[in-house]
């Protein structure tokens, strides 16, 4: 097992290296002088020369990449042009709201989606099933920001049940923290719930058709343990795989959700960087988010042995 984890960690390296190479080349293959792009439209030639020197843009390309990648390995994501602070520090300062949002969404969405999927499969063909499947198509189709504004309009502006926007740090109390996270989590989680509910239903339908389920039923296993212990446990591997792949959906959604709900997180950091052409921030956040995605999917791979003892590494 340890050897397997080590091997998998090593196999992550090329993927991360390709992400790094791609993110690096983006800036340098774009038409025009990267220094001029970063400096913006109103830059003087002196500004541009200064930036070129500061970023080492006079060096050959391969050398620039090695220097940049080397500092990445030391946790140095570069320096923001606008804030004049290390990108890693800026991301760390804004991590709490983003992590809170992602964590609440992930936990609620997974529980909700798996229950919906199991119910739909257990009652296949009934109204419940049709409702879940219809909800899934709907969830895939409505964009995060439209759901977000709809939720704000109904629950914050009209009914006044929840705050409109913003974020309260957890240190200032769990209740206000949660109150601010309810609507954004629902908006962000909708597509994720749809994705997981659909795969749960599909896998459960496959498993429920197996012989051992019929045997269980014949020998008198009660419906609930049969469904949850015998069937769901064996459906776990594909479901967990999709939960891992779907994290990409959450990461992309975070950027938009934080803008809709005015949450000062990492997503907002990126969006603000777009207009300021603060390229190091965009690069740094892409590296961090991609790294998280790769790590989550590694964890998913490793969880297979726990979920299915037949899988041995």
């Amino acid at each position: 097992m340890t050897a397997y984890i080590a091997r998998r960690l090593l196999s992550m390296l090329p993927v991360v290296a390709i992400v790094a190479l791609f993110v690096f080349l983006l800036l340098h293959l774009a038409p025009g002088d990267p220094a001029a792009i970063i400096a913006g439209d109103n830059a003087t030639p002196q500004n541009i020369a200064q930036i070129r020197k500061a970023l080492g843009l006079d060096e050959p390309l391969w050398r620039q990449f090695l220097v940049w990648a080397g500092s990445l390995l030391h946790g140095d994501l570069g320096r923001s042009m606008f804030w004049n602070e290390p990108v890693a520090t800026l991301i760390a300062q804004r991590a709490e709201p983003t992590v809170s949002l992602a964590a609440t969404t992930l936990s609620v969405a997974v529980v909700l989606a798996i229950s919906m999927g199991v119910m739909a499969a257990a009652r296949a063909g009934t109204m419940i099933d049709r409702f879940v499947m219809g909800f899934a198509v709907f969830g895939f189709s409505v964009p995060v920001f439209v759901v977000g504004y709809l939720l704000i309009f109904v629950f914050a502006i009209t009914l006044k049940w929840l705050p409109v926007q913003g974020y309260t740090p957890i240190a200032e109390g769990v209740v206000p923290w949660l109150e601010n996270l309810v609507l954004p989590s629902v908006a962000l989680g909708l597509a994720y719930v749809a994705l997981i509910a659909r795969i749960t239903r599909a896998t459960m339908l496959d498993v429920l058709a197996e012989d051992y389920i019929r045997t269980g039923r014949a020998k008198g296993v009660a419906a609930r343990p049969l469904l949850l212990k015998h069937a769901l446990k064996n459906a776990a591997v594909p479901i967990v795989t999709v939960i891992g792949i779907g994290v990409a959906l959450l990461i992309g959604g975070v950027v938009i959700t934080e803008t809709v709900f005015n949450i000062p997180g990492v997503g907002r950091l990126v969006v603000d960087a777009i207009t300021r052409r603060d390229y190091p921030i965009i690069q740094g956040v892409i590296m961090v988010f991609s790294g998280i995605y790769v790590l989550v999917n590694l964890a998913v791979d490793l969880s297979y042995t726990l979920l299915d003892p037949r899988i041995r590494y």
Partner: protein
Amino acid sequence: MAVVTEFPRTAPDRLWQLRRFARRNPTIVAGAGLLAFMALIALAAGVIAGDPQFLNPSERLHGPSALHWFGTDHLGRDVFARTVFGARISLVVGLAVAVLAITFGLAIGLIAGYYRRVDAPVMRLMDGLMAIPSILLAIALVSLNKASVGIVIVAISIPEIPRVVRLVRSVVLSTREQPFIEAAIGGGSRHHKIILRHILPSTIAPLVVQATYVMASAILTEAGLSFLGAGVPPEIPTWGNMIAGSRLFLASAPWTIFFPGTCLALVVLAVNLMGDGLRDRLDPRLARRM
């Protein structure tokens, strides 16, 4: 000797066939119909709607009325006209991304699946691309270039390609083990002929289904980019930038947000319905799994 007479296809016969198709594939028909309706409106935008850029400061934030079906926004622009013109961008970007991503994904997938030596490096590259959240990749690509519809299309297509490559590759890998491929190799067919004539056809059904999903995701990404201010130039009305521009007026003028928002959701829903219907019809194995 028997004489085979061909029965002339009469109009009612065709109509009956159409009806049967609609009855058996309600989702395809519903999705395609809704999409065709939206496309028609987008095409006829210049005829059915006024100038989407016309500013009328005396009629700011008016609610829906007979004159302005969808009301007016904070600059007094007609929301109906802007919504109708916005359909153009969504549909053009969605279609173009689907075509681009499928074309490149198909070419790369065929090569990676068929030639074992290129498989590993190409797939590692695709794994790397897939690890980058697509909206962030698109943001980076758009923010580095001058905003234009073309850049947005390319920026959204690049992150879609790896998913198509994976699909095509998996189909190629299973097809190339089939006896008829062995027979073709034994018969002395050249590689490009085997790929194009014997392997390519089996990728078409799953690709048609995949194309609809790519289109749905491209429309959503474009709207997201426009919403974040990293999309097409702001003077072109899109559903995303309409919603972004009106967000301060959510409480006082919700129609400025919900009309374009509803259209956006409807178009994506139409494409998804069509995709689900096509999948059920063309790819029964996948349909059972999902």
